[in-house]
């Protein structure tokens, strides 16, 4: 158990292990998806990516701490030419490794090298059954390419893991998307309802479906699951905004999950850098073991000592740990408040308003802010107040 002092800094070491390591090896990406969870100011991290040697050292250090599952993600990881080296090292160290890709840049030569190097599986993002929606939401012409890449993955004997981010523009096509996945020979399909962080938070009103649409999509998914059985495993990730209790985010802050970002920051979750006043460790300055066990950032929200009411005395506090710190901050301005998703949160009206806003045709009609370098550069430089909507309900 962790004990934390009043200032939230750990007084003793944790004995949790980072079983999952996510390597966000680059923020560069050929796609411009409107729902990307990457930081909106990612542009400032594209010039100082870790070297191959730094990545290999990080893999070794995390493995010693018990890390087992490795996700190689981004941005688009295939924009780096050293993924083959990273994969080979991962296999030798005993990781179960997963390349999370848009498919852009995957060639016969590269997939062959990944296979020989011991990459365990490839997760391919798909967007819709229609070329129109695929190309619109990613702001690229990638529809035909994704189908070719899916066949290539299957052809090399890899399990086919498809990830489909669900939003207003494709939620009406769930059945067709599942039929496409089955036809492509998918072994796993993740229907990941958009969660609202990063770019997707900016585009929330345009992306969010209605409660009725989500319920219908879940029903169709359940029917399809009955039909295909174990042949194709289907995960339907219920979006936070439509649950009445928050998720146990990341299965607990600093409990099982660790991210190393393109520039070497070590994070307990994908979007933690939005939190104010936090100094996250960086592998250029600190080892991963110190980052995980000792750093103030990783100990800040470990356990439940940091909680305020209504979480502190809540009988369900161990079940959900008060939900997501980033979501609490992004919506309420207070990172230590209950996740507004919870109906017991004093800020729950913010979620209800967001759901209402998503039905407002005027808000829906606003132009989407696509994830691209130009928009990111302007946001990072503070030059684009019109792109950064204020979600805080500050007093």
């Amino acid at each position: 158990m962790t004990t934390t002092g009043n200032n939230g800094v750990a007084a003793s070491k944790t004995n949790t292990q980072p079983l999952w390591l996510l390597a966000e090896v680059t923020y560069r990406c050929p796609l411009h998806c409107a729902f990307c969870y990457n930081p909106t100011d990612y542009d400032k991290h594209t010039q100082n990516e870790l070297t191959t040697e730094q990545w290999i050292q990080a893999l070794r250090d995390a493995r010693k701490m018990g890390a087992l599952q490795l996700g190689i993600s981004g941005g688009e990881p295939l924009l780096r030419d050293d993924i083959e080296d990273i994969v080979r090292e991962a296999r030798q160290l005993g990781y179960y490794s997963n390349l999370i890709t848009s498919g852009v840049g995957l060639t016969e030569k590269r997939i062959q090298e990944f296979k020989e190097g011991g990459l365990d599986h490839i997760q391919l993002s798909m967007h819709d059954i229609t070329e129109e929606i695929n190309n619109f939401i990613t702001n690229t012409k990638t529809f035909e390419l994704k189908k070719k890449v899916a066949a290539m993955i299957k052809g090399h004997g890899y399990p086919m893991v498809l990830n489909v981010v669900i939003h207003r523009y494709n939620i009406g096509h769930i059945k067709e998307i599942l039929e496409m996945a089955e036809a492509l020979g998918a072994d796993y399909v993740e229907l990941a309802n958009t969660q609202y962080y990063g770019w997707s938070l900016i585009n929330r009103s345009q992306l969010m479906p209605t409660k009725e649409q989500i319920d219908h999509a879940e029903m169709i998914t359940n029917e399809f699951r009955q039909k295909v059985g174990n042949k194709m495993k289907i995960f339907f990730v219920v979006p936070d905004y439509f649950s009445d209790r928050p998720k146990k985010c990341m299965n607990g802050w600093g409990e099982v999950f660790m991210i190393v970002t393109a520039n070497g920051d070590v994070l307990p979750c994908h979007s933690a850098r939005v939190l104010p006043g936090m100094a996250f460790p960086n592998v250029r300055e600190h080892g991963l073991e110190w980052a995980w066990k000792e750093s103030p950032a990783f100990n800040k929200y470990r356990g439940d000592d940091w909680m305020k009411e209504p979480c502190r005395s809540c009988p369900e506090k161990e079940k959900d740990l008060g939900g997501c710190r980033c979501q609490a901050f992004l919506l309420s301005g207070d990172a230590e408040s209950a996740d507004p998703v919870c109906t017991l949160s004093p800020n729950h009206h913010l979620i209800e308003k967001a759901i209402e806003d998503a039905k407002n045709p005027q808000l829906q009609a606003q132009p989407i802010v696509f994830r691209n370098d130009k928009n990111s550069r302007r946001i990072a430089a503070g030059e684009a107040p019109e792109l950064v909507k204020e979600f805080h309900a500050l007093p």
Partner: protein
Amino acid sequence: MTTSVNPADIYSLARHYRFQWEEAQQCYVLLFPEGMIKLNGGAGEVIKRVDGNKTVADIVTELQQAFPDATDIEADILAMLQLALEKAWLEKRN
């Protein structure tokens, strides 16, 4: 659709699953896309012997010999394999 485990059955680990000893956790684990399972001592000893060659009866005999002090382990082994089959960790080979 659930079939029952029979003594004459031969199983292997499902495609894309990996079984290995973990020094940091001091246990066997099963690794697969998007997940992992830590196996307790008994379950680890059973899955270790699932190799696409041995029958379920072979595995029972082998474990009875390896752990002579454990009484009546056959039912536990069958229950463990049944669970593993239902979870789709195993594939039937015969």
